[in-house]
């Protein structure tokens, strides 16, 4: 039997996976009791750009880094509304994400139609999990190559859920997935105790700071590449893109960024940049994305 060694880059880690005779079918177990196809599907999530979710005692927030496949293209939407009280942020195969979003929207609509009430998050997650699991146990299907971060508000308060191609779903206080998301998770772990009592604005700023930590030194959060979604007590879902993101980016303290100052950033004023300066930054930003952000193998559209 032949063995190939394929190295997969994830941030600063080098994961080494052995290609072997048990990884062609999702219905084949390896002698170690692993399903390699499912694990390979999880790698697709790591190829997508980062997204962060955080919740307080009253709100749930998602922020996402949008990627543009070329200068000509618009930045790919990462956050999808599911219902008035649920939004989902994707990382991985966008097409797979759309299928799952459509399923979730139908489930929410059915609940509204048949029961005249909003679908509870835990009910929705069970159904999504059951649907994704089917694809890990049939020879004629493949696992969904997308990781989702769900933010929702229901009768039990705010929720953040993470799903994996393995069909597992996790109830989280805060989470980050996608390329270089480990840095974001480190930020979230460090500030975990502050989230529960955060105000609406503080919560968004925490999420944006966590997202900023995933960026390489020469890339900044701009209103073009950043998306925010928030839902909470007494507040239906709002998704902010483009100019609507400006007030939240202004609130960020640029100096505190982990990783130290780069040459380009010294030129920026120490105070929070004004809206006009933000527009200039967007115009003169380096053509997105820099080469190290490109997904490996461009036949798969991962965002």
């Amino acid at each position, binding site marked *: 039997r032949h063995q190939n060694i394929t190295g997969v880059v994830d941030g600063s880690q080098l994961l080494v996976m052995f290609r072997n005779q048990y990884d062609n079918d999702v219905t084949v177990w390896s002698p170690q009791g692993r399903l390699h196809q499912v694990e390979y599907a999880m790698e697709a999530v790591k190829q997508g750009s980062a997204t962060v979710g955080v919740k307080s005692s009253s709100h749930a927030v998602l922020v996402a880094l949008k990627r543009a496949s070329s200068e000509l293209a618009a930045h790919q939407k990462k956050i999808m509304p599911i219902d008035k009280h649920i939004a989902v942020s994707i990382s991985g195969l966008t097409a797979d994400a759309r299928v799952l979003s459509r399923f979730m929207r139908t489930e929410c609509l059915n609940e509204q*139609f*048949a*029961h*005249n*009430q909003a679908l*509870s998050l*835990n*009910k929705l997650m*069970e159904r999504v999990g059951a649907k994704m699991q089917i694809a890990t146990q049939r020879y004629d299907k493949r696992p969904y190559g997308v990781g989702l971060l769900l933010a929702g508000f*229901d*009768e*039990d308060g705010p929720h953040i859920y993470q799903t994996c191609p393995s069909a597992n779903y996790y109830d989280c206080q805060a989470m980050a997935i996608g390329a270089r998301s480990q840095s974001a998770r480190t930020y979230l772990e460090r500030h975990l105790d502050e989230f529960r009592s955060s105000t609406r604005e503080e919560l968004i700023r925490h999420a944006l700071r966590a997202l900023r930590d995933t960026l390489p030194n020469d890339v900044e959060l701009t209103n073009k590449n950043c998306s925010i979604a928030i839902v909470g007590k007494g507040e239906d879902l709002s998704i902010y893109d483009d100019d609507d993101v400006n007030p939240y980016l202004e609130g960020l303290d640029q100096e505190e960024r982990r990783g130290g100052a780069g040459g380009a950033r010294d030129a920026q004023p120490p105070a929070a940049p004004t809206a006009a300066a933000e527009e200039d930054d967007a115009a003169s930003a380096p053509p997105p994305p820099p080469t190290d952000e490109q997904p490996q193998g461009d036949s798969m559209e991962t965002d």
Partner: protein
Amino acid sequence: MAVPGVCLQDFPLWSGGPTPGHFYNFPGNSKMNTGKSHTMYPSTSGTSVVGLVYDGGVMLAADSLGSYGSLARFRDVKRLFKVTDKAALACSGDIADYQFIREVIEQKVRDDVCGGYTRELNAGALHCWLTRVLYNRRSRFDPLWLECVVAGYKDDEPFLGYVDKIGTAFEAKEVATGFGLHFAVPMIREAREKKQNLSCDEARKLLTECLKVLYYRDCRAHFKYQLADITPEGVTIHDDLNLKKETNWEVANYISGYE
């Protein structure tokens, strides 16, 4: 494997195919022209259900008779049941259809419990779901011959709703089915005109009075009944209540031929 006396008909090569002289339903066609006709009348039926909202909860009452036409056949039929701590359901109409829908609803509640869902089925959700089910059945010309009253709580507010076999649905502060609509509802409205918010005891007295009048006037009514009281604390069902002792049949002596 050649066995004597066995011919090709015992081991059909193709089954389910067209048979000469019969209509053939092509596979994949959802519209079945089988010419089936469904039962369009109730057999064993229950009579009125009465419900009202009072200050502090909701109350429902229904008698325990299953009539077989004009025969008072089953005198201990429980037409009222507790769905969850937030909802109770009572039906008039075909008893078999009530028993069927009760099984379906009980399984629905069981599924929620097994899934570990924290939000239990409340009266508003049950009412909406029941409306959709009954309307769908009527649209297929296969109705569940029921008139239902859903009582309970929806989002901390008392809820009382009516659903019909044809899918008519509405919410109100007083609701009744069958003869109750003509006798009980005016009685309740009159009592409410005198006093807007009824207390628990007043509500119970009023409901019992309504059932008594129905027993006098409705030929398909009986003196044994059930009463459900739904408060924010939960659902209490009083079974095997009897209003026979409170009834006065002196007037029967004035009817010629009574002795």
